[in-house]
């Protein structure tokens, strides 16, 4: 009996590992319709649950995609406004405050559509896959990604605690300002 349970557990572990560790090198994410159209935004952000794009799940817990997202975050100069996650002229991405929703679909929508007060629209500048990858990485910055999938640091000057050590606060979406928890 115990051996059967152990075997089942092992299989589950393996399957979980498979999803986390797969690398789709040449795959191209199927183009998806924008998950949150601009007209659906409400003040106070994602309190209403947005349609969830199933494509996002493949990116969220995947180590390779998060790593690519980290590279793209650097390459497309997200640092310029958001810093290493602590924010600058753009809002912080490491905390619990999500003006336009913190689910991966919502984050991707924000990057693709652009947002008021200076967030550019990257839909025409980045491919679908790159958008998802950056969204997955942004999720990991606040500790919301699978710890085992996020990497600890990059090879730059250290400006944040290790990404895979971040502990997320409660998923609050009001703009009263959340706490950054470490």
């Amino acid at each position: 009996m115990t051996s059967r349970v152990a075997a089942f557990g092992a299989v589950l572990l393996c399957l979980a590992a498979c999803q986390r560790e797969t690398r789709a090198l040449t795959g191209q994410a199927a183009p998806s319709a924008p998950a949150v159209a601009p007209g659906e935004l409400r003040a106070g952000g994602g309190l209403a649950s947005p349609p969830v794009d199933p494509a996002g799940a493949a990116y969220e817990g995947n180590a390779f995609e998060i790593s690519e997202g980290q590279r793209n975050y650097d390459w497309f100069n997200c640092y310029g406004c958001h810093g290493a996650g602590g924010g600058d002229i753009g809002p912080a991405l490491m905390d619990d405050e999500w003006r336009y929703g913190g689910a991966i679909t919502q984050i991707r929508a924000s990057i693709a559509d652009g947002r008021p007060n200076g967030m550019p629209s990257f839909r025409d500048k980045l491919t679908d896959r790159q958008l998802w990858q950056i969204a997955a990485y942004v999720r990991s910055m606040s500790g919301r990604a699978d710890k085992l999938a996020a990497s600890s640091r990059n090879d730059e000057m250290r400006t944040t605690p290790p990404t895979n050590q971040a502990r997320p606060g409660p998923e609050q979406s009001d703009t009263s300002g959340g706490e950054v928890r470490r």
Partner: protein
Amino acid sequence: MSTPLEDEVLREQLERVWAHPTGWRGVLMAVDHKVIARRYIATAFVFFFLAGALALLMRLQLSRPESGLIGPDRYNQLFSMHGTTMMFLFAVPVMEAVAVYLVPLMCGARNICFPRLNAYGYWVYLFGGIMIWVAFALNIGPETGWFSYVPLAGPEFSPGKRTDFWAQMVTFTEVAALAVAVQLVAQILKQRAPGMTLSRMPLFLWAMLVTAFMVIFAMPAVMVATTFLISDRLVGTQFYNPAEGGDPLLWQHLFWFFGHPEVYIIFIPALGMVSQIVATFSRRTILAYPAMVLALLANGLLAFGLWVHHMFATGLPRLGNSFYTSASMMIAIPSGLQIFAWIATIWDGKPRFRTPLLFVIGFIVIFVLGGLTGVMLASVPLDLQVHDTYFVVAHFHYVLIGGAVFPLFGAVYYWFPKITGRMLDERAGAWNFWTFFIGFNVTFFPMHMLGILGMPRRIYTYKAGLGWDGWNLVASLGSALIAISMLIFVVNILVSARRGKIAGGNPWEASSLEWATASPPPVYNFLRTPVVTGREPLWEGDDLPVMSGLGDTRRETLCVTIVEAEPDVRQKSAPPTIWPLLAALATTALFIGSIFHEWAVVWGAIPVAITLCGWFWPGRPTRRAVKAETSLEERAA
């Protein structure tokens, strides 16, 4: 004087005292060095064939330019697993395993000095090997080569857990290697047969002594290196991050400080095997014994001063590089001396060209070529051209296969009769040797050319028309011949184990102590402890003298003084127990857990501590037991 009746009674008594349980309990609780060594050798050969299969796949991919057979991600995992398995799971373990079998026998001892540690080391090795291969099967195998340079293997460029599994596997194998090394040092220095002074030790024992010390000094460096790597990847330390004061070269220094002695750890036991085989099959003692011992010691010492020759292209100061050129050239001297001595022994002896000697001759032809390309690589300007090309791949296969695997095969043919009691087939052995020799040279000699013609290492494909196409095809064809050779070897082993000619105690008329007992040896190795009066005990002409006084009412081994080998104390030898296996399982849980979470190091230590308590729990007081039971001999007297 012993009468046949007393021998029988003693034999029965020893069999009773040294008996081990049968069935599954016996498998899991075994502490007999012969049982563990047989498993160790078999496991190592399984890894050898697995890694060899990966190599065949690689050669298949490279047989044509721009072959679409295997993609880059899979190919990177293939060559990483091939190198990792061969170096960590085959080469070092198999040499240590052969030593675990032979050293106590050559020392005339009843069992190895730390039997439970021996069992523990094997289990840890097995679990580590299984872990990395399961990871590979799940597409989480290592992908950055067997020496995983950072930053490529660091947190930014190697996502997921692939490199973590690799780094932790290294920890498994280091623990296992250290376990064996510690035993070999204690066994060889303190538990030899009486009368076997240091200057009467067989060269194989000298080789294993040197190797064991090298393991003890080299392994900690790689453990530190991989611990830093896991730490960088798991908790964000900055050891290898140049932006924060770390340095990618730190990894290279730490790794190669281990990595260079590692190849000598693989090579020096083979030198010991060659000495035994050459002496036996030439029917004369090896020429220049003191020089041979000094050569082994020199090899062991110098090996620690060479590691920077792996880093000549990294931009280190020129003067420093020159120092390592000299050291790397210097290490050719002891090897050159040994080669001459062996050939001279064959020249002056009365050689019988059986399969073990064939493999030794193959070793000389192949290894010397590899050593000479090593001398070429020692030169900085030339190394800067051929470093990281197929020239280096050719070089290290010549020295590793020629210098270690050929002697190993010779050793298998030589000691198989001792281990199983049956001879391997001579004709199949000759076929094995010739297909291996020819196949090896057809595979690896062209790689010298490929490197010189500009082909770098670790590329999953290459552009057509650069002059590489033909040589690559030839190399791939040679690899098929090697595969055939391995098939012959496996068939020979499997068939001869059941139907080979019965061997008897000393079928080769060899001189060292392991041939003084039955084949296979009884569980207690020797009926009575042999006493040694010369360097070639079984060639002294008379019957082998023996010693009485070692107890037969409990498991005991004899300790002697280090230099003069005079009997010193009797040491209790551990009976079969489950605790080494449990401790190994706990250790495995700790190591695998710490891949995923840093707190596993803390929580995982608890089961390890519990199992160690069980392991070392004091048994019944023994003084009363010894006093109460007098030995058979005392009663008879």
